[in-house]
């Protein structure tokens, strides 16, 4: 190969990384690249309607497939529109590579048209980022970017590419290896530490596994199942860990934390041993720190040393890859029983099950339960927005496989779910993809309906429409004397603002409004059969709350329950 342009080098590098799909939006400083992508056979470019849609789609693609998601935007506003999505991916350790155009190298720092210092802006929200100043560095930078994004604790990497670098010609040779002196993630666990874990398990009477998103990221689900079943240790997962352990397994306690199951939270508080795997003791999990798991010896298996003893003191840390470590532990551990402990947990499960009021009203939890029932045998991916919709989707759908749950956990980004669902569907076209939404969050990236229709990416949008920003309203109800400051979205002056059925139709999608509980099943059956994109607008009880709930700053043992 003779000399080729920077744009071509980038594309050849993407191909070398096995990239088949990219999500993006054109603009002045990225035209040389989009021009070369035009008509490109091996890489499909998905045109979104907003750069935020592109970055969330790349993120959803990564979560659904385990591959690195790629998004492309122009300089300045195009690039800054990626910021929320990059921060979202960063908080949840999702591997994406964001490519942004930059103004001509000679203009950088001169307040040029559509200039923004993207390396500066994204420094604290990326795993790493690059400004390419020399065409000779480009292939190496792409190689490093993908390597950094997908290895160790994954995360987003940004490549800022000045427009002149896209034009310049150079020899192309894709490096085979990366040489980064300061980056060598530890994969293999320390054998001495693993033996200490085994001893701690043998000594323990009330052990619990607390599994996080690291299980999904390291593809360690099978190993976790084997480990839990052999030791008979119950498993609770974080929001990010949903699907990492089958929730229909008798050992599963569902999710823990602020809106976790009461029995999971009680078990954590009573446990004498907590085995945290690929989790980071987030405040939504631990509640008040000084009361968290007071009796427990804490084991922490994680690839990121910075996660260890960050919030909760860890007694036995093991740094490394969760899958590898669980594999090795499997050979060291003995079969366990813990009959008394299981009996105790069963009592909690009976006393305080996950429940909501059973009546004839259209309650959001019921909608999720029905989706779960109707799609049990299907290959389903559930994406969510953020707020009550997300919590009900977490609580009332039974996740049994990894990469079937896609949600913005750490950053809590409203408007994430729909574009992420599109990305997931592109990555896993054979799967049935739902976006569980609220009427607030769906409006944050509703413009992507055009992407869904034109690019033919059919997803099923379930709007749990309560006419308000439900989760904030819930906090206002419980802690702010029902002062519903700026959380009411549907008002008398406009009860359907917007009319989601008409809105769907205006894009050429299907729209159905459901106002009665009796119509839920039928509507869902229609949606499941539907080949194209469909919006189901469920008008649900406005003042329904997510329970159990641990108020912010409380011990996770102190939960509010909806049904006394």
């Amino acid at each position, binding site marked *: 190969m003779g000399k080729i342009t920077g744009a071509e080098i980038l594309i050849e590098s993407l191909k070398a990384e096995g990239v088949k799909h990219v999500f993006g939006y054109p603009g002045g400083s990225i035209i040389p690249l989009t021009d070369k992508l035009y008509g490109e056979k091996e890489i499909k470019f998905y045109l979104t309607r907003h750069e935020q849609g592109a970055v969330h789609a790349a993120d959803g693609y990564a979560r659904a497939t385990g591959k690195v998601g790629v998004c492309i935007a122009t300089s300045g506003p195009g690039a800054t529109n990626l910021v929320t999505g990059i921060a979202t991916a960063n908080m949840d350790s999702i591997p994406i590579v964001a490519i942004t155009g930059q103004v001509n190298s000679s203009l950088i720092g001169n307040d040029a048209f559509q200039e923004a210092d993207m390396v500066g802006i994204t420094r604290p929200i990326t795993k*790493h980022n690059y400004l390419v100043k020399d065409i000779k560095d480009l292939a190496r930078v792409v190689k490093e970017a993908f390597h*950094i994004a997908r290895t160790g604790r994954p995360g987003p990497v940004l490549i800022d590419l000045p427009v002149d670098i896209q034009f310049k010609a150079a020899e192309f040779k894709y490096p085979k290896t990366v040489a980064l*002196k*300061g980056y060598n993630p530890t994969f293999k666990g320390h054998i001495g530490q693993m033996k200490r874990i085994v001893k701690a398990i043998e000594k323990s009477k009330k052990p619990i596994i607390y599994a996080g998103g690291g299980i999904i990221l390291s593809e360690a689900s099978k190993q976790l199942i084997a480990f839990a079943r052999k030791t008979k240790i119950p498993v609770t997962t974080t929001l990010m860990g949903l699907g990492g352990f089958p929730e229909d397994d008798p050992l599963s306690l569902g999710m823990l934390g602020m809106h976790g199951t009461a029995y999971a939270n009680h078990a954590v508080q009573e446990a004498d041993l907590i085995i945290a795997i690929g989790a980071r003791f987030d405040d939504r999990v631990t509640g008040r720190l000084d009361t968290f798991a007071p009796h427990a010896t804490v084991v922490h298996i994680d690839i990121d040393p*910075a996660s260890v003893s960050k919030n909760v003191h860890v007694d036995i840390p093991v740094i490394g890859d969760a899958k590898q470590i669980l594999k090795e532990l499997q050979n060291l551990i003995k079969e366990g029983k813990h009959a008394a402990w299981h009996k105790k947990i069963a009592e909690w499960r009976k006393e305080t099950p996950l429940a909501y009021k059973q009546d004839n009203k259209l309650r959001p939890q019921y909608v999720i339960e029905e989706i779960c029932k109707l799609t049990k045998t299907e290959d389903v991916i559930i994406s969510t927005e953020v707020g009550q919709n997300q919590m009900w989707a977490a609580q009332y759908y039974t996740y049994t496989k990894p990469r079937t749950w896609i949600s913005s956990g750490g950053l809590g980004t409203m408007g994430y779910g729909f574009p992420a669902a599109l990305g997931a569907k592109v990555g896993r076209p054979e799967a049935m993809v739902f976006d569980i939404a609220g009427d607030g969050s769906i409006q944050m990236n509703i413009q992507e309906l055009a992407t869904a229709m034109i690019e033919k990416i059919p997803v099923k949008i379930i709007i749990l429409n309560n006419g308000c920003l439900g989760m904030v309203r819930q906090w206002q109800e419980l802690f702010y004397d029902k002062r519903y400051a700026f959380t009411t979205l549907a008002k008398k002056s406009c009860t359907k603002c917007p009319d989601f059925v008409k809105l769907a139709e205006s894009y050429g999608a299907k729209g159905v409004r459901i106002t009665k509980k009796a119509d839920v099943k039928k509507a869902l059956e229609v949606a499941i059969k539907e080949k194209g994109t469909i919006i189901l607008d469920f008008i649900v009880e406005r003042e329904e709350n997510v329970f159990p709930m641990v108020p912010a700053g409380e011990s996770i043992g102190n939960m509010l329950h909806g049904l006394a």
Partner: protein
Amino acid sequence: MPKFVITVLVENKFGVLARIAGLFSARGFNIDSLAVGETESPDISRMTIVVEADEKILEQVKKQLNKLIDVIKVQDLTGGEYVDRELLLVKVKSENTKTREKIVQIAGSTGAEIVDMGKKYLTIEETGDEHKIKALIELLRPYGILESVRGGKIALTADK
């Protein structure tokens, strides 16, 4: 808050300083001093950072420093054996021969050098540990310090 001396070996690339400074500033830690320069191999730089910080939060910062791709090694020298040096340039008022003689005498007594002489001032260069630098400043203060500059602390570990 206690003071810490941290040395960081980094790739000698643009943007590295901003990444490192960002980790401290994001937590509201003020960097007392920071010195950067090439090491024996030109593609690696050594930074010496002196920072006042909460110990527990600093532990986390050190881990985060280690996570930066451009950071090769982080060492906390605090509490261990090390040698450190600072550089001082200080411009002192000296308007007559009498004060001039006294200032030259003070400088001579600590081994400092006179590096510039003006009509109404003397500029003195001193190297040494923080204690020595501070002592000299205090001795010179009565004469009137017009301007002064201190290079950040540089440090290397030492045998016990």
